[in-house]
């Protein structure tokens, strides 16, 4: 009797050991994703292949973005801001109009640039090919890419010369489109709406504080800043102002925003010489250029 029991317990133990790996590998959604491993990305002359990115994604990304790209990696609960949910196909940093898919280059640049004030590192130690492969991998999570094409990048006119007039005009744009409501009159993210902001998923989100010295999320060149308010940061309360701001005015606004930033700049020097005052929220809203 005892021998029989022992035999049974041995068999049960062995069966349990064998079942362990089988049970943990049963991930149906992963199988679904496997169908999309032929997804490609195109960045210049580079072609990225999703199938080649599996190991890099597992090595570098999965802890935050999750096996299924849903932003629910094991660390997500501890992170703020939360990791991107790739399944939604919604991205902040784009060169394309609001609500459209970003270009492959936009995603490629985001990986290499990282995001200040978040846990997304600067992955510029990866080769360009690895980053292109990861772009394809990111795309394979969302059905949007199967049904839509990336938007066309917005046209950015050449950057004009910084002048005192342009900086003052930029201040008028800042007042007119009411950037101060979130970013504050001095760009310190303390506008009256700042504390009420939430993203599309209802999670609290902070406006960008221009004065604290960190890089803007989507890049710190003048063109990057131009793109931010002309394309909007999809998924956040930051809308696109493409319908409200003319391209030339957009450059004025870029120059004015530079005066808030802690880094030394020509714009800051000019603002200092002008003795430029912050916008007055109670003052009449300036008219758009070309309007009477």
């Amino acid at each position, binding site marked *: 009797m005892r021998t029989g029991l022992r035999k049974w317990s041995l068999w049960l133990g062995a069966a349990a050991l064998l079942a362990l790996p089988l049970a943990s590998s049963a991930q149906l959604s992963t199988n679904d994703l496997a169908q999309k491993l032929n997804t490609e990305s195109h960045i210049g002359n580079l072609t990225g292949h999703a199938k*080649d990115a599996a*190991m890099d994604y597992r090595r*570098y990304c999965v*802890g935050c973005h999750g096996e299924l790209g849903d932003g629910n990696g094991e660390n997500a609960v501890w992170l703020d801001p939360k990791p991107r949910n790739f399944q939604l196909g919604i991205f902040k940093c784009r060169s394309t109009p609001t609500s459209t898919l970003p270009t492959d280059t936009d995603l490629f640049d985001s990986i290499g640039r990282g995001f200040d004030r978040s*846990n997304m*590192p*600067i992955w510029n*130690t990866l080769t360009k090919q*690895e980053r292109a492969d990861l772009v394809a991998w990111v795309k394979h999570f969302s059905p949007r890419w199967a049904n839509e094409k990336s938007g066309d990048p917005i046209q950015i006119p050449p950057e004009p010369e910084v002048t005192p007039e342009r900086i003052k005009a930029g201040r008028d744009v800042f007042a007119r489109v009411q950037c101060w409501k979130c970013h504050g009159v001095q760009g310190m993210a303390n506008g009256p709406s700042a504390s009420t902001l939430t993203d599309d998923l209802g999670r609290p989100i902070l406006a960008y504080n221009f004065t604290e010295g960190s890089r803007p999320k989507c890049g710190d060149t003048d063109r990057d800043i131009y793109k931010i308010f002309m394309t909007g940061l999809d998924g956040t309360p930051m809308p696109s102002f493409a319908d409200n701001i003319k391209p030339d005015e957009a450059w004025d606004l870029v120059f004015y925003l530079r005066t808030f930033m802690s880094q030394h700049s020509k714009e800051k020097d000019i603002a200092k010489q002008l003795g430029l005052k912050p916008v007055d929220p109670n003052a009449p809203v300036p008219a758009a250029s070309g309007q009477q």
Partner: protein
Amino acid sequence: MHVMRRLRIRSFATFATSLPALSLILISVVLTCIQPANALPAFARKYGLRCSACHESWPMLNYFGQKFKDNGYQLMNDRDAPIWQNPGYWPVTFRITPIWHRVSTGKVLVDTYAAGSTTPTGSAVQRVTTSGFDLSGLDFHTGGTLEKNFSFYVLPSSNNAASFHFETVMARLDNLFGSPWFNLKLGKFELDNLLSEKRILTLTGNGGIYQLYHFTPQGDGNIFGKMGDNQLGVEVMGHSFNDRTRYSAALLSTVDGTPGLPYGSNAYSGYFTASQAFDTGKAGVQRIGGYAFVGLAPTTWLTQTGPSGSTVIPGSGIGNKSFSREGIVGQFYFGQHVDLQVVTQHGSDSAWFGQGYGDFIDGIASGNNTTGTTLPPGSRSPTWNGVLLEPHYVYSPQLIFIGRFETIRMSQQSTPGTPQSFGNISTYTIGYRYNPFMTSRAGFAWHNEYNWLHQDGTGPSLGVNAANINTSELLLGFDFDF
């Protein structure tokens, strides 16, 4: 960090290999069936990144991990300062490794006894083999940032009897003048070896170190040229934004990392590295660089005669003589799974070291280079060349297979007439590390390794000319940290 040294202390336990070995193999089979995950402690907890983000296989760094280290343990995401952390976060990690190992050493000189005699009647040479369960020492790693661009690392480390010393104590000013090209480190730290011995993937007594980083010729009295040992000094280091280009220059006290200035009264050395990496598309990033370790170390010591005889006065060493180690380092990647790490070395010591002068204070040197001392006629600088090849097969971030071949060949013996091969070393190591889980909270590796080392002519002669010694070690264990 210095696991291999602690593993050198071998237990002479019962020779009962078969059952434990079988059990451990069975455990390894079961473990390799378990599904994913992984770990990395203090930094991983801070940033929410898995071990694999920074480590090719823990503890060996990948390029991203190297950049993180070069940035002063910062991601440069404007959230590096401790003010952004939960106040409860304390950047501490411990690491320890329980193991079973079998060590076999050839040509050990042992006493022999005549029948019925309890006193040795002679000597013989025989192989000594021992096996048993054992323990590494314990490391407490604490490191990170004190403020943005102010980083630190403190590592109290023990042997397996819990006797602690400071393996690393350093503070670093990062990104001076707002540039990654200027970083200043002061304290006791690892030299800027691209192939880091402190992050070695192997654990056995001889395979757990890079022989190239510690080699000295037989009879040489210089203990100061050991680039694998952490050193006391100051280092300026810089790198490009993506870390493809790196350089470092360190000024060190020639004390082999021993605090208290026990050796020379005025002995310094320098360690210099530079490297460049190239993006080669599908193959990966290839890095090539060079290093030079040059210095002066004392050979003459003041002594003091007291009631118990003559003793050496600590810190009194003068009569500095030179030494140098230089070579190239390559990190070559062949796709996502295969890489090859290469280090070469040409080493040279002053003839004085070669003739046994040097560390008199620890009794390493056979003589004191006092006034009037002359070298034996024909004495020369001992020189040698070595190469280290370490291929890896990374099956996944959780499973890595490791191989290593090292050989060091004397090119010139200090004493004419000494066999050219005397003291040469060749060693092979193979093994694998399997991380059954991978998270950002802890690290655990199931480690299997075999090392074989051959050294020419250093065994007891006893009538056996050119007594070559072969030593081998098999090791299985759990390497974990939290």
